[in-house]
């Protein structure tokens, strides 16, 4: 097992989030969400089950929670060597995450205004992508994310931004 942080802010934000956990597997940084781009993830938590040949046996960004009985059943089947039902091909919005990755590059070079322009353009391509939306929020309003995520603020922010849907 590996964990992959979809976090443009990198290790300084991710490492404290692991404090006190008993994680014994590799935790990797994926600042520009390359894994999400490949697997079609638009929010976290999300995850995938990989076969020994590297193929994706299962991927989800809407039920990848160990408390979810559907995932537990799939995991038990998969880890005991069973086969999972094939999934329909997952739609992905590659252009949005490409723009997002360009924004991460600008961000890492200290050009926050350029990063925000690119991230907003990315979000316009895929308004349902909460990886992108949350990164914009986190960059502009870090006090709403660390040390504690303020979901009430996020809900109000969604309304302000005219998003017609619930906060995932």
């Amino acid at each position, binding site marked *: 097992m590996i*964990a992959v942080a979809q976090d443009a802010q990198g290790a300084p934000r991710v490492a404290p989030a692991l404090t006190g956990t008993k994680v014994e597997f590799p935790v990797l940084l994926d600042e520009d969400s390359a894994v999400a781009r490949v697997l079609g993830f638009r929010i976290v938590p999300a995850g995938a089950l990989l076969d020994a040949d*590297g193929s994706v046996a299962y991927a989800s960004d809407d039920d990848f929670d160990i408390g979810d009985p559907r995932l537990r059943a799939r995991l038990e089947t998969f880890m005991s*060597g069973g086969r999972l039902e094939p999934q329909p091909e997952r739609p*992905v919005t590659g252009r949005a995450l490409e723009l997002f990755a360009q924004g991460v590059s600008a961000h890492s070079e200290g050009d926050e205004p350029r990063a925000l322009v690119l991230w907003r353009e990315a979000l316009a391509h895929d308004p349902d992508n909460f990886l992108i939306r949350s990164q914009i929020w986190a960059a502009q309003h870090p006090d709403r994310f660390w040390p504690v995520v303020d979901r009430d603020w996020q809900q109000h922010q969604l309304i302000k931004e005219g998003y017609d849907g619930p906060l995932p």
Partner: protein
Amino acid sequence: MTRDADSSANGLGALDQLSLNDLNGAPFELRALRGCRAVVFCFASW
């Protein structure tokens, strides 16, 4: 929603080509997962 010709969630091999760093900056090639069944869990600090 659109689909890019070169991008597919079921695009086998695409993950294999990724190399990420761990929290200490050490590189990790995802192709190292080949040979056994693996779970990839994505999360964020926010």
